């Protein structure tokens, strides 16, 4: 699971993340929404251990990211909005490389790849250099390699960018299956429809603060809206200045 305990991060005199407290349980699909520069990516980078919080604590799978980063990272998978891939390797070489970095045996890598490659329809591209692949295929390679070691916590920033509807569906299905099997997903997106469809719980970050979290129905109740989640999101982020994080009925701060 993911635990953020009063986490704050400043960039100079700007509070990018301002006292966020949040727990995402094992086997929960949590989507975070927010306007541009709201602090979503900074929060994600702190969960991934790339940035240290100025104050507060971040724990992944029970391990503190600052004090005990290695066991936390061993259970974590992080896919940024523009994932890094070795351009001159092939997808198969990259999968094998990341599997080995996670300490997987050759047999385990083969077994995991045998299930992921067909699902992501990567067989055709498996032995072609990554620099010859389209953006969508590269995105699929990045997600497949992140799932290879069967992480307990999966953190992904804007996963649907560049994916066609078919492959977006594949990614959604796989993530849902993994969540049902106990994986925790923390997904950041601008697409409210994705959050509405996939998330067990949605959080809205605005000006560095977690201004709302709960099921889509909870958010509608708070915003006094109905219909698509977009209406609740717009009402919460534009319509009012919220004083601080709010916990809604059914939500878990």
């Amino acid at each position, binding site marked *: 699971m993911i635990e953020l305990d009063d986490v704050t991060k400043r960039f100079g005199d*700007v509070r990018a993340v301002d006292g966020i407290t949040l727990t995402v349980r094992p086997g929960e699909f949590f989507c975070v929404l927010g306007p541009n520069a709201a602090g979503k990516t900074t929060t994600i980078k702190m969960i991934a251990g790339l940035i240290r919080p100025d104050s507060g604590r971040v724990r992944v799978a029970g391990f503190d990211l600052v004090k005990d980063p290695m066991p936390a990272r061993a*259970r974590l998978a992080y896919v940024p909005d523009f994932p890094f891939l070795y351009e001159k390797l092939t997808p198969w070489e990259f999968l094998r490389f990341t599997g080995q970095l996670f300490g*997987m045996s050759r047999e385990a890598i083969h077994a995991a790849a045998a299930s992921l490659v067909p699902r992501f329809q990567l067989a055709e591209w498996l032995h072609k250099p990554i*620099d010859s692949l389209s953006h969508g295929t590269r995105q699929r390679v990045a997600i497949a390699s992140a799932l290879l070691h069967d992480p307990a916590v999966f953190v992904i920033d804007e996963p649907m960018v560049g994916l066609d509807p078919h492959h977006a569906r594949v990614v959604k299905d796989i993530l849902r299956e993994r969540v049902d099997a106990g994986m925790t997903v923390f997904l950041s997106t601008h697409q409210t429809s994705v959050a509405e469809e996939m998330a067990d719980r949605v959080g809205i970050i605005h000006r560095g603060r977690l201004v709302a979290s709960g099921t889509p129905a909870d958010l509608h109740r708070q915003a006094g809206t109905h219909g698509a989640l977009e209406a609740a999101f717009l009402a919460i982020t534009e319509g009012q200045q919220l004083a601080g994080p709010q916990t809604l009925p059914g939500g878990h701060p």
Partner: protein
Amino acid sequence: MRTAPDPLGARDAFMLVARANALGAWRRLGSIGGRSRLTAVAGAAFVAGYGLIAYAIFHLGLRFVMRFPGLGSLLVERLLFLLFAFLMVLLLLSNVVIAYSNLFRNREASFLASLPVPVEAVFTWKVLEGTLLASWAFVFLVAPLLVAYGVVQGVPWHFYPFAFVLVSLFAVIPGTLGAATALAVARHLDRKAFQVGSLVVVGFLAAAVVRGWRTEEITDEQLEARALAVVDRLLSNTRAAQSPFLPSQWLSASIQGWGEGALRTAAFYGMVLAAHSLLLGRLACSYLAHALPGAASAVHGRASVLGRWSWFQRRQAGRRAMAGTWAIGGAPIPGGARPSVPGDPMDTALAWMGLRPETRAIITKDARMFWRDTTQWGQTVLLFGLLAGYIINLRHFSRQLDSAFWVSMVSYLNLGACALNLATLTTRFVFPQFSLEGRRVWLVGLAPMGLARAVRIQFWTASWTTLLLTLALTVLSGAILRLGPARILYFMAAMTVMTFTLNAIASGLGVLHPNLREAQPAKIVSGFGGTLCLVLSFVYIIASVVVLAMGSPWGWRDDAPSSAAAAAAWLAFVLLSALAGWLPLRMAFLKAAQPGITEAR
């Protein structure tokens, strides 16, 4: 809780990352040959040609110095100490810049930091990669020198592998020190005390250089009658290069000891060098590596480094206040007045010059991007600063420059040096301009002016800007050599043609061989297109200077020059320039005008 496999040890993780990168590098190398065999062969020929020419020059120089009666060996020894000392300083600077970008502005470093890879493995790999990047030019420069030294000294065969091992060990020291400095800068750059301290240290070093940089006035009488006294002063003034605390001294002493058969001395200094390299390497793999996460977090979580200064805070507050007035969303101003639009001084100045808005937009964008990338203007200042320093120092050779032959020789060498400097600049800054638009190239390409016009604007802007620098240096060189106005005008005209040609080569090849995926200019330049640009530029410069010098209108000695030969040389030079510059530029304009350019590699 799920169990996770045991994380890899630092050594295994390092080997994995190194293997992935080595495989990538090998395939990148292979793809160069696969793309165009002819240009790959041209590149290889250039490298071989450079090696041979450099070897020949070093060999000639060393033999010349060795002939000095009684003191030849001593002078060669001191020259090597000096050369390695200067190269060490340059290597250190280069390592600081490369280590900083490799550790903190590098996507692979961020990728590895999110994986269960021990920080020691990440840091060691990035430092090794940075050291290799920073040191290849050093090896490239030093290799022909060491071969020439070996041949002149008549060394045994084992001198060469021994020298290679020593040079490799030596590269570790500036590599590690550069990485340590980069870590310190990354960790503490936003601290006022660090900023003030750094300025004080730089000021102190500058003062020491100014104080220590004395020019020795040497008269003809001293040269002819008191040569030994002059040499003694020279040796005395350069003794600092032999300080036993300098790693360059250990390297130089060990290499020379081995070359002269003093194996005990060579082994002693070799072991001193090895001990320090291993110690620093060990520190890099352990103690320094643990500072990486904190430093990386500081860099990624940093606002402006000037944020602690009150003047900067006031300036930012002013800007926020201006933005605040715009946040009203264009509400009408009471009384019907139109809101005033803040002026842009650069745009206003360009408008006064009669430039059209789209031209002004491109120039302003490029100028701002150049100015805000401190590594770019820093390197420009360094390149032209060194050349200006060399030209200014020519005045101290005024007595030796009384002969017509030497005045002609130095004036043409200066023309070549200035053009070579410019070629480095155009390859480094003008060539990657098109690629730097990256995936945003469509933004300019789809604007009404079109991509071809944008390329034209960038070419003219770069040409006129660099022309100011090159003409200034040409005039300075002419004045110091006391050339007449006609002769200075002649070199100014030649330099003008060469400036436009070199910019045309860089602009043209930049469009013909773009790398739209890479964001770092240094990496764009290090690719095939950048190498081709540098090779073509150098070949063009050498050919031009030779042609112009052969048809010099002022002759080489006191013989009467042939005006027909001079005219033919100038004509050949102009034709060569037109061919070398016009062709790639024309092809670039055609390519930029084609639809689909934004989908280029």
